């Protein structure tokens, strides 16, 4: 008896206002945390309409929103046949609204279909975004390790930013967030 094999996709959601790691950040860009908006920040005057910059006070994305967005995208791009093929093992194993990183479990044979559907998602709850796959693996363990490493880099970056901006509240919050997210990732069942 051959066991059923899965793939785990580690993905990151990039919004228009996500601080981009090590790239040069314009001074007006604030932290991606929901409550850390700098007061008096100029509204985004993009000629292309709302780029999601002004939507800080939206509630954080729920797990089911993401899963439904993916299922809709599969149905739109691959039809009922694709939706049927990928339906069974498709679950969101983990998602952190702090770092916008999450793990999908998908079936191994239909990996390309699900990944393609993720690529074609261009907005989540009306907010334009990119979903970028960071890592794929056959076991969730490796995904966990990569997530923790990725989270750490990300949170360290945000913490350094907070330190530079002398925002001690955000600094401690981020420290807690890192610990929380690491615990959460570790507690995922393998």
């Amino acid at each position, binding site marked *: 008896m051959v066991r059923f094999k899965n793939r785990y996709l580690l993905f990151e959601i990039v919004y228009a206002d996500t601080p*981009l790691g090590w790239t*040069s950040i314009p001074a007006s860009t604030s932290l991606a945390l929901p409550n850390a908006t700098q007061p008096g920040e100029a509204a985004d005057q993009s000629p292309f309409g709302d780029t999601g910059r002004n939507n800080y006070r939206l509630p954080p994305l729920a797990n089911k929103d993401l899963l439904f967005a993916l299922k809709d995208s599969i149905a739109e791009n691959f039809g009922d046949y694709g939706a049927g093929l990928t339906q069974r093992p498709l679950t969101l194993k983990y998602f952190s609204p702090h770092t916008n990183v999450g793990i999908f479990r998908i079936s191994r044979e239909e990996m390309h279909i699900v990944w393609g559907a993720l690529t*074609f998602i261009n907005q989540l709850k009306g907010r334009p975004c990119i979903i970028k796959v960071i890592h794929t693996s056959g076991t969730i363990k490796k995904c966990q390790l990569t997530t923790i490493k990725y989270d750490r880099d990300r949170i360290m970056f945000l913490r350094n930013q907070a330190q530079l901006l002398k925002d001690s509240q955000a600094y401690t919050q981020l420290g807690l967030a890192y610990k929380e997210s690491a615990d959460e990732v570790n507690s995922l069942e393998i």
Partner: protein
Amino acid sequence: MFYDLNIPVTPSSGSTPSALDQLETRKRVELLAHLGYQAVAYNNEITGKMPQNHVNPITKLALPGINLKQYSRLTLVVDDISQNYGLNTNNPSIASYDILAVNPTNEKLFQAACGTFEVDIISLDMSARLPFYLKHSTVGLAVERGIYFELCYGAAIRDATARRNLISNAQSLIRVTRGKNIIISSQAMRAMELRGPYDIVNFGTLLGLNQAVAKDCLSSHCRAVAMHAETRRNTNRAVMSVAPVASLAETEQWKLGGGTPGGKRKNDNKGTASNKKAKELQSEPVK
């Protein structure tokens, strides 16, 4: 190393990009760097004949701390076979761009582009139905000459009809080229239409490319385009390039021969076999 050889920067009005255009370009480029690309080409698109005294409006951004190669690219939309578009390096306005692409809009011009035009990329609008049928004999000419075909995914992210057309056109292109000489680039008007390189590789596999080939479409094939452009612009008959002596780095000064007076005397005194050989090597580039 991943390339995105199509970031449109065509000025929305006038001849120079406005501040808003530049901000949008900056956003796209920073996002590209974040997604893992290491080279980008800014694309200016011109329809019809190049105007006289055309000035290249592309300015390369100063990006401290980001390792990103930047190229400028011109895409000429050609529609009239009887017109002379002056596509050669003697034309100063064309020589001011790093990479040259054409977008032929009818079959005659497509044949001419594949067979004779001195360009690096043939870029067809894949988000609409192609007005002609891609034939193996025509496309083969371009493949033989090292010209690459471009697939742009930006429009496909925007809307579903373009996605359908892109998939259908890409399939026919892949069929006639047998997966050779294809590059994939974004043509993203806004930052949110970009995608990560591995996401695009996966999309390539959905189109029917082999995974390794799909990766090459974003990396080594694009490098080949950049090299082809370099050869077309800066070499004499694609064999030899000439650079001024002043451009040599400190560590390469030895290529000039002679060396410092002290070093020369030392060589003369000893005159061993190895030194003679070294001297020969030194004098060679001077010829």
